[in-house]
């Protein structure tokens, strides 16, 4: 009997010690971080996420994406995440303040997704059935902000026939010219906006030359741009990848999320959202595969994952990322054709 009080106190004490130490004190330390901003109070990062992003996060949770994909970039002096082009800098607690649930992940049977949205080709602000998303949202300050717009916006370029795409291209460049934002995303945008070659890369099935530059990116984790598919990491590409992963990479062991898509008979004309499928995955003649709302949300979520914005507390590799894209337009201006092909890789940095 005499030893009982110490036993109970010890049982509770040891546990309380770890509870306080590993959860309470950290909450006190980093539990109420604010977004950062510059002196003028602009350039706020991170920003709260859109509703589609939030719902996409739940689709991501429901289908267990976290069991194969991490969302954290480790520092360059620890691991090769940055060399693998998974990010320009290590992830920091501030990157995640608006994410709930947070999916740091513990497994990489697939790529790290912390910056998958940053890898997307520049959003094309063509007049499109972009839903309620405002195309000129806040793309300048944060790629994530632009994602919901980008998701539906990019799909028509794939779904539509080459004719429609090229028809859209003249519209694209004025839209970009009109946008006065002068930070990284516009820099990327001009890369794609270089009128017709940019579209050619997307639509020309035999366009092997555009594929070459991205294939040569050493150590790049992502697969080679396949001819005939939408530009890599565009919303349309994500849809094809989710629907038929092995049509993009034959060795992929990612499950196919076909239940997030609807196969339906084409009524009237083909939907602009219909997936650009080929080979055995393509629906029979007269049918089309369109994303459900959940699929659109999960793609909006993926497109919104973007930690490319610099953080004051973390050193970015290769100088300030804000400066990084600026040489790109110049190079692209010099040789338009490769620039178009490089579009999947170019927006990365």
């Amino acid at each position, binding site marked *: 009997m005499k030893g009982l009080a110490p036993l109970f106190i010890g049982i509770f004490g040891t546990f309380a010690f770890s509870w306080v130490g590993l959860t309470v004190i950290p909450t006190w330390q980093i*539990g109420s971080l604010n977004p950062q901003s510059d002196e003028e109070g602009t350039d706020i990062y991170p920003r709260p996420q859109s509703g589609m992003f939030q719902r996409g996060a739940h689709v991501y949770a429901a289908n267990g994406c976290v*069991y194969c994909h991490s969302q954290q970039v480790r520092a360059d002096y620890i691991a090769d995440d940055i060399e693998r082009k998974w990010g320009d800098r290590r992830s920091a607690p501030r990157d995640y303040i608006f*994410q709930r649930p947070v999916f740091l992940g513990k497994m990489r049977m697939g790529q790290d997704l912390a910056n998958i949205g940053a890898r997307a080709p520049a959003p094309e602000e063509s007049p499109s059935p972009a839903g309620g998303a405002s195309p000129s949202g806040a793309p300048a300050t944060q790629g994530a902000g632009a994602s919901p717009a980008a998701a539906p916006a990019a799909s028509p370029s794939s779904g539509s026939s080459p004719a429609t795409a090229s028809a859209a291209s003249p519209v694209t460049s004025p839209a970009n010219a009109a946008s006065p934002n002068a930070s990284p995303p516009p820099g990327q945008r001009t890369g794609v906006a270089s009128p017709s070659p940019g579209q050619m890369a997307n639509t020309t099935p035999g366009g092997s030359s555009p594929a070459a530059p991205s294939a040569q990116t050493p150590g790049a984790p992502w697969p080679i741009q396949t001819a005939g598919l939408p530009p890599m990491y565009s919303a349309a590409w994500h849809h094809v990848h989710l629907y038929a992963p092995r049509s993009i990479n034959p060795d992929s062991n990612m499950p196919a999320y076909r239940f997030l898509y609807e196969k339906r008979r084409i009524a009237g004309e083909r939907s602009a959202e219909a997936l650009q499928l080929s080979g055995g995955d393509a629906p029979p003649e007269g049918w089309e595969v369109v994303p459900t709302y959940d699929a659109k949300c999960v793609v909006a979520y993926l497109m919104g994952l973007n930690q490319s914005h610099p953080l004051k507390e973390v050193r970015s590799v290769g100088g300030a990322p804000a400066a990084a894209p600026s040489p790109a337009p110049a190079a692209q201006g010099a040789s338009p054709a490769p620039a178009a092909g490089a579009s999947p890789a170019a927006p990365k940095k």
Partner: protein
Amino acid sequence: MNTTGIPLRDPAVSAAAGDTEQLERAYIDASTRVPVLMFYTSAIAWLVLGTVLAMVVSFKLHSPDLFGGVSFLTWGRLRPAHMNMMVYGWASMAGMGTAVWLMARLCRTTLRFPLLLAAGGAFWNLGVLIGVGAILLGDSTGFQWLEFPRYVAVILFVAYTLMASWAVLMFRHRRGDQIYITQWFLLGAFLWFPWLYAAGQLMLFVVPVQGVLQSAVTWWYANNLLFLWFGAIALGAAYYMIPKVIGRPVYSYHLAIIGFWTYALFSSWTGMTRMVDGPFPAWMITASIAATILTMIPVATIGLNHHLTMQGYFPLMRYSPTLRFTVFGAMSYTVFSVIGVLISLRSVASYVNFTQVSIGYSHLGLYAFFTMTIFGSMYYIVPRLVGREWRYGSLIKLHFWSAAYGIGLMTLMLLAGGFLQGANMENPALPFSESIETVMPYLRGRSIAGILLTISNFIFAYHFGLMLLGLGRTSTVPTFLNPVEAETSGGH
């Protein structure tokens, strides 16, 4: 080998054992009969279901188009369904059954209100069932180890209170002043779990913490569930079963006490080793790594204590299934902890952090250590509840060897494959897909290991089913009075 295989010696009291003591034990066992058998039955049902899911999960990982296109059969839902079935269905139920029985025995008191306990078990099963269904239907929370939605957490919590409060109450009504080390571990487990579960739920769902702290809470919870809930029960069971079977007291009681306190103190701090180099303040991770290294103290004391207790009695493992499984589990605890230290070191973690090594580590803890120890306890406890001895010694042997080879092969495959996967991942000269292709043959090997484990679990379930139906052998050597009716139906 003796077909009953059940240790027939009853050490501690053998000299002074009078009929009264045996009678008392029979009464105690009888009082725990309904709830413990109910816990065991449902646990084994979950084990079988979880094993089937595990096979599907394992095969789908290298053959992704298996059962493709069906939402509730997608890999990302089956995996957490399997995991939660094993953690909350099998391991928690089996652990609680064992703990309740041990508590009653050690407190030398009958279990009051056994039916309430059984009701708690029914609620718990309901919670796990709804939770697994919710995961399969796409209502997972997305937090690893805590995928069950909130409404399930409430059910589980109520069920747990129904079950655990009686176990703690038994401790209050115990007879005799001595508190055995097993009771420490069990009392710890029973008190740690509700706090742990409540803290996890509160900090993730009720008053959610911000950003990455959700991950910190998740892994703090996961590791504590592993160590302070499953680990504590398994260590408590091992401290009971090993001395009991070989008929010899624990080698050093002081070592045991040191082991207990250092275990409680250090293993509860290890959670952040799952997130080495993640986006957290460095001190959190460093503290966890330090704590993990310090867990070598309880590992050494507990391991040494078991070893010195067993010294000279290892040949008994040839006869006693309880001893064989328990010693395997206790040894696995050492292996599990040593590997835990290795993979938490920053230099190693940078390679293996995002690989199959973590899966191997979890299986080593939950199967090789916990499950094998609990199998050992079940081989001891079940005959005392049903009044029959295990029917086939050969089945027990088959169970042991397929489980041992299965988990050994699985660990080997996941660790070796994971290390290669990590080495290739950390080599930017290779494309990322190389790391996946490297691990694929090992994952196929893991599926083979999974077949062995499936065989072992099904054999055990079948054998347990025979016992439950009263088809066990009538005991040849009556060490105890049977706690159940003395009908003689044996031998067919």
